[in-house]
């Protein structure tokens, strides 16, 4: 598994992401700069990490979504290559058109930074095969704009085609209600592209890979990816 992490001005989770990828694949990812035009030959997985690309100017992820490297990421996704976007990376995927919808300001207007339970919707994808279907995992969230919104037709399509990847839930696995930290439609925490080779999610699995920091529930996502190619 050959991986690459794209660094934009203002990205700040690329180090955590690189550590998680190295732990699962045994190889250091290639770090790419936003102004690069190509992915290294043979790249299996491209990751857009969290942070505040371009200071969140205009809209979160809007300027990064039009960066030079994104044409190469788009071409990679069209070929069926794997793409993972976490937090700001998810916002960038939506702004670049690789995923539908948009991440809006949290409904309560607060930046939320805390541990969060998620329900794994399906485990037959390259990202989740090391989880169980319906499993409740605990990872962390840290965002001010994670309120997933899309028009009714898009939500219906996401639900109908099984493209919701993760939903916010409580420790007992009950989805929604107070467990929804940001007002996301249908408690959506992450979604897949149509071919399920692109995943965007607001929570940070890359921060839960070591017992030292309170849990390892994020590890299976990277182990799934490592065994995918």
């Amino acid at each position, binding site marked *: 598994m050959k991986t690459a992490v794209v660094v934009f001005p203002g990205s700040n989770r690329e180090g955590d992401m690189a550590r998680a990828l190295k732990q699962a694949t045994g190889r250091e990812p290639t770090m790419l700069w936003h102004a690069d035009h190509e992915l290294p030959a043979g790249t299996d997985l491209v990751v857009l990490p969290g942070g505040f690309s371009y200071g969140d100017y*205009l*809209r979160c992820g*809007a*300027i990064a979504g*039009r960066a030079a490297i994104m044409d190469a990421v788009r071409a990679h996704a069209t070929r069926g290559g794997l793409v993972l976007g976490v937090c700001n990376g998810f916002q960038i995927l939506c*702004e670049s058109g690789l995923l*539908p*919808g*948009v991440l*809006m*300001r*949290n*409904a*309560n*207007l607060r930046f939320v930074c805390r541990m969060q339970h998620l329900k794994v919707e399906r485990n037959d994808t390259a990202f989740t095969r090391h989880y169980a279907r319906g499993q409740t995992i605990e990872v962390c969230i840290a965002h001010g704009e994670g*309120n997933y*919104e*899309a*028009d009714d037709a898009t939500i219906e399509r996401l639900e109908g085609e099984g493209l919701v990847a993760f939903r916010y839930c409580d420790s007992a696995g009950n989805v929604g209600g107070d467990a929804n930290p940001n*007002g996301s439609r249908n408690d959506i925490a992450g979604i897949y592209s149509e071919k399920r080779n692109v995943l965007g999610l607001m929570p940070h699995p890359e921060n839960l890979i070591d017992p030292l920091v309170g849990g390892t529930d994020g590890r299976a996502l990277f182990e799934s990816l490592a065994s995918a190619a």
Partner: protein
Amino acid sequence: MKARVVVTLKSGILDPQGKAIEGALKSLGVEGVASVRQGKVFDVEFAGGDANAAKAQLQTACEKLLANTVIENYRIEL
């Protein structure tokens, strides 16, 4: 030539920031406010004087970057 682009949230899209501003206005005693929606204004200056060309360029700018047409409408004023 000066142009202005106004970007507003589509109706039906929840605007938590507008809601917070609405609440603040009410608490300040500003009367008669039924609702507030927050938007963005871009003042763009063009080097040339061709209004049609500028309008076409702004259209592209809005579609490609200034507005997210999933949730926002835009208006170009020249």
